[in-house]
């Protein structure tokens, strides 16, 4: 924990993020090129779903990142509430728009995949509804954290929302096991052998890595932008009190 505390220092974090960003950005580009090559050209069509299986290569990694992003946001919010780390609030605030973006991709691509496979754009089953709630939680967090003149109060209210909303993450994960849903159960699991052909698993994992590297890049950029806006606010307040 003591090592983690060192990175709560904004200046140290800025130095670290400047070192990581070129690598995460380069890795994102490289992984997207290789991942898209396998996803679009070097993988077979599914025997049941045909070519629509290619939507999976963006839909599933987006879903994983949408849930990872919410977990990061909830962990940062807990850290902010308990230890009052200066960087924790900023991390949660930076993560929310990214999570909303990835969740929007999940919902839209899922709908475009659902129409040809299920015959419907949308159905109010447990998996789809809980992902829609995730999207609203992200929007609520964005609105709440910006709703107060004092950013500290906004951050605290948003942190409580993020923690309460975290209950939705396991609901999303296990909704396909707990309820009868139109959505298929997980095909890639750490506990069992994946129920997916290696020819399709390869592009899926490559795209998941590309999305993860992209998420890290975006998060670092947004944290830097948030740190800059905090500095601006501090300077403006100092100038206003000096005048």
């Amino acid at each position, binding site marked *: 924990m003591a090592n983690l505390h060192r990175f709560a220092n904004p200046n140290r974090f800025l130095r670290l993020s400047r070192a990581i960003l070129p690598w995460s950005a380069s890795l994102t580009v490289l992984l997207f090129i290789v991942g898209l090559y396998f996803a679009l050209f070097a993988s077979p069509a599914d025997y049941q779903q045909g070519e629509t299986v290619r939507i999976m290569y963006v839909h599933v990694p987006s879903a994983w990142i949408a849930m990872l992003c919410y977990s990061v946001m909830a962990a940062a919010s807990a850290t902010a509430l308990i230890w009052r780390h200066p960087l924790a609030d900023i991390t949660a605030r930076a993560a929310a728009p990214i999570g909303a973006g990835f969740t929007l991709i999940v919902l839209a691509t899922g709908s475009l995949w659902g129409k040809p496979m299920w015959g419907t754009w949308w159905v109010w089953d447990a998996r789809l509804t809980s992902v829609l709630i995730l999207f609203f939680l992200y929007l609520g967090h964005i609105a709440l954290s910006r709703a107060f003149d004092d950013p500290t109060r906004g951050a605290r209210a948003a942190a409580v929302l993020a923690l309460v909303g975290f209950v939705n993450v396991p609901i999303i994960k296990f909704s396909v096991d707990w309820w009868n849903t139109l959505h298929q159960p997980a095909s890639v699991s750490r506990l069992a052998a994946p129920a997916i052909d290696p020819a399709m698993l390869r592009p899926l994992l490559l795209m998941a890595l590309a999305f993860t590297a992209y998420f890290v890049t975006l998060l670092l950029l*947004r944290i830097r932008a948030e740190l800059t806006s905090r500095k601006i606010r501090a300077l403006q307040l100092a100038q206003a009190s000096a005048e």
Partner: protein
Amino acid sequence: MDRIYEYLQMGGHAAFIWPALGLTATVLILMLVLSLHDLRTGEAVLRRLEATRTPRRARRSPPDSHPEPNYEA
């Protein structure tokens, strides 16, 4: 040419697959553009603010004098 056309047809599901990929690319790129825009705009404002602060500091401590410690404070 026929093979490219056939590939783009995506087994008759082109109307679902290409919009899904296009929408994903649009949202991903938009998130990057907006994040970079926020960062660059913020950094420009910060530079301006810091530039207006520097002369005031410079007036307090001339460049040839040692700034620390400040016994006047």
